[in-house]
């Protein structure tokens, strides 16, 4: 006799235990290696499953539902055919990787936003109002900073709008910041400069 046929009852017993999730880890690799090579084991596995279903619920036969159990035996064949159909091929790696990376990408995004907010807010936070006791002491520097900020804002406003904003903008355009057109600036300056 061959080793294979001698091992068969052992493999079948392992198959039975595996179906019950009772096969020790050390035996699993051996069984799996055998199973994937044995077409007979597939049919046996299906029948063991059928036996279990019928024993658990004898009414399925009486109620005419036993065909469900029989139908289940076809299922593996249908799944196999579906997977062998052109285009269904292998497990999809891309979605899984995307799925795995998504939480990290979100975390990185949130962290990046946090850093940007911190950078932008840092100057403002330095001048942010302190609690009530400190607010009186810090009034003067805060006012100065506020004034400086207002000046800067005003300058920015004029830089962006000065070209079209009449008398006031002329002084700004003298700096040649806006359009670099000395002739135009000179003309405007001549027109609007105060005496």
């Amino acid at each position, binding site marked *: 006799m061959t080793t294979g046929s001698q091992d068969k009852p052992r493999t079948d017993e392992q198959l039975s*235990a595996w179906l019950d999730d009772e096969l020790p880890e050390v035996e699993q690799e051996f069984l*799996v290696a055998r199973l994937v090579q044995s077409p007979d084991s597939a049919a046996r596995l299906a029948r063991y*499953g059928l036996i279990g279903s019928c024993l658990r619920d*004898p009414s399925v036969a009486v109620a*005419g539902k*036993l065909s469900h159990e029989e139908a*289940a035996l076809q*299922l593996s064949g249908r799944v196999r055919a579906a997977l062998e159909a052109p285009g269904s091929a292998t497990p999809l790696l891309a979605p*899984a990787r995307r799925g*795995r990376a998504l939480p990290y990408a979100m975390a990185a995004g949130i962290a990046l936003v946090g850093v940007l907010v911190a950078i932008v807010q840092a100057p403002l936070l330095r001048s942010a109002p302190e609690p009530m006791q400190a607010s009186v002491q810090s009034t003067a520097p805060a006012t100065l900073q506020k004034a400086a900020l207002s000046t800067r804002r005003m300058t920015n406003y004029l830089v962006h709008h000065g070209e079209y904003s009449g008398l006031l903008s002329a002084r700004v355009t003298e700096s040649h910041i806006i359009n670099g057109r000395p002739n135009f600036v000179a003309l405007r300056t001549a027109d609007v400069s105060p005496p």
Partner: protein
Amino acid sequence: MAVTDGDQLLVERARKGDRRAFDLLVLKYQQKILKLIMRYVRDQTEALDVSQEAFVKAYRALPAFRGESAFYTWLYRIAINTAKNHLVAMQRKPVEYELDSQDPEIAERNPHLREEDGPEGLAMQEELRQTLERALAELPEELRTAILLREIEGLSYEEIAVAMDCPVGTVRSRIFRARETIDIAIRPLTEN
């Protein structure tokens, strides 16, 4: 007896594209999944379609399975979602059934239009049930007790060993021998 998730090895093989390994996982769980889906989709043909879809989805999503839960737990969730999605999809076009009730394909998919199993099918089911009962009755007492404690009471091998006052290895052997005996009895019927 230390047992880890017995499916992990097959999952690893299937992930590498070994369809035979996945096939074995389908065989192991097809009964459970079909029964589960039939709680949502009552028509058998439709339930088979949904079960097939669930398994195909599981195969394609295998790389996402990280083994944080048991394979069956993961598969169970996929099956439930597939069944629910199927129900949602079907509810969008309920009128189609009525309009095309003469179409055999649609009629087959509609639980309300499906015919009951024919007399031949019922006779075969009854024969199978009787064969099972007879095979069970003829089993030696220790085999019958072991298989019933496992399949009906859902006890683990260790619990059965305690209940029957025997080693776990003996329980495993008894359950296997019981299955083999019943299998020999019902095989001619299932092969048809």
